[in-house]
């Protein structure tokens, strides 16, 4: 007596399943389930990954040493975006800000908020005329910058690595609307 024939699609599924099947510690493991359920699962994972890595934790590559020694050059991190969904950046926080788009971004530390007065005197940061302790600034700095007030809707950002002439360091007032997140670690 002949065994009932399986239809072609079922046969293909079984063949592919056997091809990808692996034995791990006595239990059977399939790399991918080619059934409808498997495809739906894959679609859900892809959508979740797209949402998570696009709108929640965006992978970033740090290129440049302006945040040394806090963040080294050529480091990898994630930009954690939900942090500014309901609140604004605060002083001392490291932020990631965008340029025209979000493929090239800035990594800086907020040192003063809107309405505050910022000044550098012999490398020492002064906010509203008071010295600010900055344990994260390890490398020597001798900057001098006359006092200036931060405009509404802006924060003042500077890198942690100030061991360079002031002209060569990118820092200054940054629109809060450009800030998209903070590094995850």
């Amino acid at each position, binding site marked *: 007596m002949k065994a009932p024939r399986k239809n072609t699609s079922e046969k293909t599924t079984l063949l592919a399943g056997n091809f990808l099947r692996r034995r791990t510690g006595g239990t059977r493991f399939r790399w991918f389930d080619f059934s409808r359920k498997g495809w739906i699962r894959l679609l859900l994972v892809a959508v979740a990954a797209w949402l998570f890595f696009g709108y929640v934790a965006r992978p970033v590559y740090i290129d440049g040493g302006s945040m040394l020694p806090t963040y080294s050059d050529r480091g990898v991190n994630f930009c954690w975006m939900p942090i500014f969904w309901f609140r604004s950046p605060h002083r001392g926080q490291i932020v990631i800000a965008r340029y025209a*788009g979000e493929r090239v971004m800035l990594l800086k530390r907020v040192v003063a908020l809107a309405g505050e007065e910022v000044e550098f005197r012999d490398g020492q940061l002064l906010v509203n005329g008071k010295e600010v302790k900055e344990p994260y600034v390890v490398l020597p700095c001798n900057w001098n910058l006359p006092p200036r007030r931060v405009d509404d809707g802006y924060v003042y950002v500077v890198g942690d690595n100030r061991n360079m002439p002031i002209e060569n360091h990118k820092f200054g007032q940054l629109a809060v609307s450009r800030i998209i997140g903070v590094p995850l670690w």
Partner: protein
Amino acid sequence: MVKRTGLMILLLAVLGAGGWYFFLRSTDREKVLGRLSDLAEYVTKAPGEKGTGLLLKSQLIGRLFADHCEISVDFHNLSGTYTPEELGANLVRSRQFVETIQLSFYDPSVRFPQPDTALLDTTGQVLGKAKNGDRFREVRELAFTLKKIDGKWRFTACRIREVLRK
């Protein structure tokens, strides 16, 4: 029968032409972005680039700009209004100081406030190596204005948008 075949061929030809028009023609947006990638290509200097290539690029770069292009940038006293010839000459002059230079544009966005005017915002990155061996890297947000002159999009203004103000 012959009449029906002729009609079918005509219908197919019309459909083909329509498809070509809608799917293969380049839109103004694509043309503007093409001008941007041309600019990046002509400014870029690869290691070991020959003099003939430089000459060709200096001539081609002039075609990207209108008769008078206003440049507002914050370095090397480059701000001013230039003719295409002056821009080509500036390109040749500036290349003498660098071993390699690579200009890249990221996240371009185009708006058309008028049918013959395009506003293009992008992030520009210049990577390079000077003759003395120093490496440099500059990133700026750029705002370009292009006008459609004689059916071709040409740059009429370029300015740096300030992201950080000291």
